[in-house]
C-alpha cells in the first residue's frame, strides 16, 4: 500500500486566542486505506482536515508542519495548484451539512459543477451520474431532487446530498468529517459501504472523522486519536479499540453508551405534553406556475411525554422527526390535530398561555450552528434564557451560566463566539442554553450527534441527573441507537411521518415488532460487530458481506 498523504508535525494556531488548536500532529494514509480520526470534541480534527485542503478559516493559521500528497508538498503549492487538487484529488465532506449547501442554487447545479469542471462529460452524463449517486445515498425521487433547493430537505437528506456530490468526483483522498451524524443506521451503513466501495474500486483513501466508535470498528483499518490538539495514539483500529494504551482512548472506549439497567420505573405521572393526531403539511405553496405537490411530513401522530420521562424518536432520515418536534413546540404551524400542554391545547391558546408554555419548553436545534446568534458570545447566549427568571440576581445568573457551561464541558469558553468553536462545542452551547433555565419539557433534536463518547456520556448523564432532580420531560430525537438505548424510557419509531412502532425501551430494543425497527437495529454498528473483510486495493473485486 503506497502512501498517499503524509501529515508531518502539523501545528495550527488560533490567532485570536493564541493557543495551538492542532499541536504537532503527524499521520499518513495509504491509497485505498480507511483511516478513522477520533477524538475529543474540539480536539482539532476538523481543523487538521481543513489544513490539508488549504481552506483554514482566517482566524486559524498553520505555524508549522508539512502536508504531502503523493509526494507533493501542499504547504508550498500555489493557490492555483491547490484549486486543481481540490475536488478530484482531495474531496471533503464538511461537518455541518446544513450550512454547506448553497441555499440559492439547486441541488442539481451544485452537484454538476464539480463534475463539469474536472471531468469531460456531456450534460446528460452528468445528470445520469448525479441521479445514480443520489440513488446510492438513498434519496428518493432523485430527479425531482435535482431541481430542488437545499432548504427543502431534512438535515440527513442534506448530509447525504453533500456526500453524494463529493463522492461523485471519486477523489483520491476523501475526507469525511462526521458524515453520518444525521443519518439513520440504515442509510449510514449504505453510505459507508459506498465509501468502502470507492476505496476498493478507485483506490480512494478515506479519512473518516467520527465519534462513532462502532463505525471505526466496523470500517477503519487504522485510527488516530486526538486530544486537545495532540495526537495521543495511532495504530490499527481494531487494536486501538480493543487494547487502548492512552488513558484518553481508554476513557473513550469505556464511555460507550450502555443501557442503564436501573431504568426509571415511575412513568405514571400525568403527561406534560401530548400530541393528538398531529399533522404537518409542507408545500402546496404558490410558485410562478401552478402549485407544487404538498408533503405531509407528520401524519397523524399521537404521543405523550410524562414528567421525568425521556421519549426517544428514532426513524429514517426525512421521516418527520424534526418536524414533529417543532410542531409540538408551535414553531411551525400544524395543519391538523392538537398539542396539549398540561391539558391545554396550545395550538389554540391565547398569548399568555403560549408564553407560559414557551417559558417552560426548550429546543435543542438539530443544526446548532444556525441556531446561535453569530454576534453573541457563548456566555451571553447561555445567559439569555435567564432573563425570564426574575428571581435570580445578576450574580446568580452568572454563576448559573458558569455552572452549566462546566456541566457540558465548556468551562472557559464563555468569551468565544460561535464561529470560534468546533462543531461539538456549538452543539453543547445549544444544549446549555436549553437546560439553563431548567425547563419542564425539552425537545432535543440530535443533541449528541457531534459529541465524542466521553462528552456524550457527560451530557447524557447530565440529562439523566436533571431528570431525576427536576423531573423534566424530554423528547429525544436521535439516530444514534446506542445513545437512545442509554437514555430513553420509551422509544417511538417513525417512518414517513407516521409512528410505526412505540414501546418501552427494552421492548423496542429487545423485542422489535415492526420490520423497519428491526432493520434499523440490525444496521446499528456496535463495537463488537464483526468487521467486514479488509478492503482491498483497487482492481480487486469487492464482495459484500
Amino acid at each position, binding site marked *: 500500500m503506497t502512501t498517499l498523504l503524509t501529515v508531518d508535525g502539523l501545528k495550527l494556531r488560533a490567532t*485570536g486566542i493564541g493557543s495551538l488548536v492542532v499541536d504537532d500532529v503527524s499521520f499518513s494514509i495509504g491509497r485505498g486505506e480507511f483511516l478513522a480520526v477520533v477524538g475529543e470534541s474540539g480536539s482539532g480534527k476538523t481543523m487538521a482536515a481543513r489544513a490539508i485542503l488549504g481552506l483554514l478559516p482566517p482566524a486559524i493559521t498553520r505555524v508549522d508542519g508539512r502536508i504531502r500528497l503523493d509526494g507533493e508538498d501542499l504547504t508550498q503549492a500555489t493557490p492555483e495548484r491547490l484549486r486543481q487538487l481540490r475536488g478530484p484529488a482531495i474531496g471533503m465532506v464538511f461537518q455541518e451539512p446544513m450550512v454547506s449547501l448553497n441555499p440559492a442554487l439547486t441541488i442539481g447545479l451544485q452537484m454538476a459543477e464539480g463534475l463539469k469542471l474536472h471531468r469531460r462529460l456531456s450534460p446528460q452524463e452528468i445528470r445520469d451520474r448525479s441521479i445514480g449517486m443520489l440513488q446510492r445515498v438513498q434519496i428518493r425521487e432523485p430527479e425531482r431532487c435535482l431541481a430542488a433547493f437545499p432548504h427543502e430537505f431534512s438535515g440527513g437528506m442534506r448530509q447525504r446530498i453533500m456526500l453524494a456530490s463529493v463522492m461523485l468526483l471519486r477523489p483520491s483522498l476523501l475526507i469525511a468529517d462526521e458524515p453520518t451524524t444525521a443519518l439513520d443506521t440504515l442509510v449510514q451503513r449504505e453510505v459507508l459501504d459506498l465509501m468502502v466501495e470507492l476505496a476498493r474500486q478507485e483506490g480512494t483513501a478515506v479519512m473518516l472523522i467520527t465519534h462513532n466508535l462502532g463505525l471505526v470498528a466496523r470500517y477503519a483499518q487504522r485510527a488516530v486519536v486526538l486530544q486537545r490538539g495532540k495526537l495521543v495514539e495511532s495504530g490499527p483500529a481494531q487494536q486501538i479499540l480493543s487494547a487502548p494504551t492512552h488513558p484518553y482512548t481508554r476513557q473513550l472506549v469505556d464511555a460507550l453508551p450502555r443501557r442503564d439497567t436501573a431504568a426509571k420505573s415511575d412513568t405514571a405521572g400525568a403527561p406534560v405534553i401530548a400530541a393528538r393526531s398531529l399533522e404537518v403539511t409542507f408545500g402546496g405553496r404558490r410558485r410562478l406556475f401552478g402549485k407544487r405537490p404538498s408533503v405531509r411530513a407528520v401524519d397523524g401522530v399521537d404521543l405523550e411525554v410524562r414528567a421525568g420521562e425521556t421519549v426517544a424518536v428514532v426513524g429514517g432520515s426525512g421521516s418527520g422527526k424534526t418536524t414533529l418536534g417543532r410542531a409540538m413546540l408551535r*414553531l411551525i404551524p400544524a395543519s391538523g390535530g392538537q398539542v396539549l400542554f398540561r391539558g391545554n391545547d396550545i395550538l389554540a391558546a391565547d398569548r399568555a398561555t403560549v408564553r407560559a408554555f*414557551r417559558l417552560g419548553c426548550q429546543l435543542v*436545534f438539530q443544526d446548532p450552528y444556525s*441556531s446561535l*446568534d453569530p454576534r453573541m458570545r457563548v456566555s451571553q447566549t447561555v445567559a439569555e434564557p435567564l*432573563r*425570564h427568571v426574575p428571581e435570580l440576581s445578576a450574580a446568580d445568573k452568572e454563576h448559573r451560566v458558569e455552572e452549566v457551561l462546566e456541566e457540558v464541558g465548556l468551562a472557559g469558553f464563555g468569551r468565544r463566539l460561535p464561529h470560534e468553536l468546533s462543531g461539538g462545542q456549538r452543539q453543547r452551547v445549544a444544549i446549555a442554553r436549553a437546560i439553563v433555565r431548567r425547563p419542564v419539557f425539552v425537545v432535543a433534536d440530535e443533541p449528541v450527534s457531534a459529541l465524542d463518547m466521553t462528552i456524550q456520556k457527560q451530557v447524557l448523564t447530565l440529562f439523566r441527573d436533571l431528570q431525576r432532580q427536576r423531573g423534566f420531560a424530554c423528547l429525544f430525537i436521535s439516530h444514534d441507537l446506542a445513545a437512545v438505548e442509554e437514555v430513553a424510557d420509551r422509544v417511538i419509531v417513525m417512518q414517513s411521518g407516521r409512528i410505526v412502532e412505540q414501546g418501552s425501551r427494552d421492548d423496542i430494543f429487545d423485542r422489535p415488532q415492526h420490520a423497519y425497527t428491526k432493520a434499523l437495529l440490525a444496521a446499528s454498528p456496535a463495537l463488537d460487530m464483526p468487521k467486514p473483510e479488509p478492503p482491498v486495493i483497487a482492481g480487486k473485486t469487492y464482495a459484500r458481506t
Partner: protein
Amino acid sequence: MKLRGNTLVGGTLIGIVLLTAAVAAVWTPYNPLQVNLRARLKPPSDLYWLGTDEFGRDVLSRIMAGAGTSVLVALLTVTFAVVVGVILGVVAGYVRGWTDRILMAINDALLAFPGILLALGVMVVVGANKYGIVLALGLAYAPSVVRVVRGTVLSVREREYVEASRMIGNGEIYSMVRHVMPNCIAPIAVLSTSMFGWVLLSESALSFLGLGVPPPAPTWGNMLAASRPYMETATWLGIAPGLCIAFTLLGINLLGDSLRDRLDPRMAHA
C-alpha cells in the same frame, strides 16, 4: 494588519475635518463672510491659499468655516434617517402583517416625494435654516433606509437563532433589538455612509435647482453649487469643496468599514 491602515487613514481624514471645524470656530485666515470686491476670483496664491470666490471671499476660510456646518448637517440628517428608518424598517419586517402593509404604504408614499417638495414644505414649518434641511433631507432619505432594513430583516428573521430567541420566551421586541437588528448592520452601514455623501451633495443639488440652504454661511455643498458657472475659468472654486467632500466621505467609509469589521464577530480577531 491592513485593517489598522484603514482605520488609521479613515481616522486621520475625519480627524482633520473635525480639527478644521474646531479651529474654524475660533480662527480662520480671513473672515469667511468678508466680501472683497477688489479681489474677486483670484487664483490660489500665497495671500489666498485656495484663491477667492466671486465675491472675493477667501476660499480657504470658507472651507474651514463650512466644515462644521456641512458635517453637522450631514451627521444629523443621517442620524435622523437611520434611526427612524431602522426602527420602522425592523418593525415592518419583523412584525409583518398589517403593520407592515400600513407602514409600507406610508413609506412608499413618502418615497414618491421629491426632496425639493419636502424641503419647501418643511421650510414653511421649520424655516429656511439648517434644521429645516436636516428634517427635509432626513424625511427624504428615511424611507430608503426603511426599505433596505425591512428587506434584510425579512431574511434575518427566518434564521434559526431568531427562532431560538423566540423559543427561549423572549419578547418580539427584544428578539428584534437583540438578534435581528445587529445582524442587519452591513447594509445599514453602507447606506448610511453613502447617505452622508448624498446629504453633502443634495444640499448643493437643492441649491442648484434654486433652493438655498441658509447661505451665505458657507457649506461645502453650497460652495460646490456656486462654483459651477466658474468651472472653466476658476477651477479652484469647485475643486476645493469637491475634494473636501470626497476625502470626508472616504474617511467616513474607511472608518465605517473598520468599525463594521470590529463589530463583526468574524473579523474581530483577524
